[in-house]
């Protein structure tokens, strides 16, 4: 025992432990950094997929309202309620399929034969009022579940016409402008 106290026995072991400890900390830090980077990249990928899926679902809904060839419920129009559309974007490499519900609500347009329609895409299973409310009062209010919100303006007369006439037939949704596009709720 006296030898152990008086010489340097154990010094190598202490240095080895210190070395292992320090390098272990460095290795752990690098591994943590790499893991966090990969996790964040994966999360960003999911967010990107969700955003494109939501935008695509809204494009489908916009076209569907055009193809219905009817004037959706709007002040002064009467008619059909703006329809809810369910869209599933199939899975891609590295991403799962995404199912969404697109709710639309008609707002107040300032010009006759134009309709302001707001679309909101929400995760499938979200109720209409929890996605976009205001159907009855023509005041669209996006809710927290809305991933992407698009504000559109539907023109129901050909370009250059202000009223229905012989060369200005009522053609619901003859053209559409997108005046607002908000994807800030997409996380990733």
């Amino acid at each position, binding site marked *: 025992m006296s030898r152990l106290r008086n010489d340097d026995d154990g010094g190598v072991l202490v*240095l080895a432990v210190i070395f292992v400890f320090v390098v272990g900390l460095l290795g752990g830090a690098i591994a943590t950094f790499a893991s966090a*980077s990969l996790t964040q990249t994966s999360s960003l*990928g999911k967010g990107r997929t969700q955003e494109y899926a939501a935008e695509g679902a809204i494009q*489908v809904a916009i*076209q569907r309202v055009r193809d219905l060839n009817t004037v959706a419920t709007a002040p002064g129009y009467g008619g059909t309620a703006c329809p809810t559309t*369910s869209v599933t974007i199939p899975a891609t490499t590295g991403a799962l399929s995404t199912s969404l519900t697109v709710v639309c609500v008609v707002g107040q347009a300032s010009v006759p034969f134009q309709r302001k329609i707001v679309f909101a895409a929400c995760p499938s299973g979200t109720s209409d009022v929890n996605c976009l409310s205001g159907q009855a009062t023509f005041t669209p209010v996006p809710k927290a579940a809305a991933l992407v919100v698009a504000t559109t303006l539907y023109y129901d007369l050909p370009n250059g016409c202000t009223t229905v006439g012989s060369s200005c037939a009522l053609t619901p949704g003859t053209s559409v402008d997108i005046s607002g596009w908000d994807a800030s709720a997409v996380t990733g």
Partner: protein
Amino acid sequence: MLYAMIRARLRAEPSDSGDTLLEVVISSAVVGIAAVALIGALLTSITASSEHRSLTVNDTALKSYADAAVQQIQRQASANWQGCAASYTVTAPTNMPSNYSVALSGAQYWTGSGNSGSWTSSCPGATAPQLLTVTVTSPTQVATSVSFVVRKPT
């Protein structure tokens, strides 16, 4: 402490007893095992970092190409949209990374049914929205895809 150890070693008789040798052996074993483990961890980190870079570049390339495709097919003044188009030729953005391959799939078409519908390979009408998928593959064969929808422009 280190100074005291060195001074003690200078004072001490040179010792080649088994104790020190045993400790050196044990220490070497500990360091060796730890070094193997740490080098393995570092190699894993390096591989993960490379993968991370590939995925990040893939993501950027995907967004750039998909947005360029939407712009050219649907948004620009003289859009390339074609009803029931089988596929599109898209001019890739100039900032696409080199050595990364990009492929744009053939279109699928939205076939509505009530309040829902599905994507089919048969086109129900010239105004049917089209689903396109772009896939970017890195030089290390990491492939990432994203699907996007284009519709008949105004």
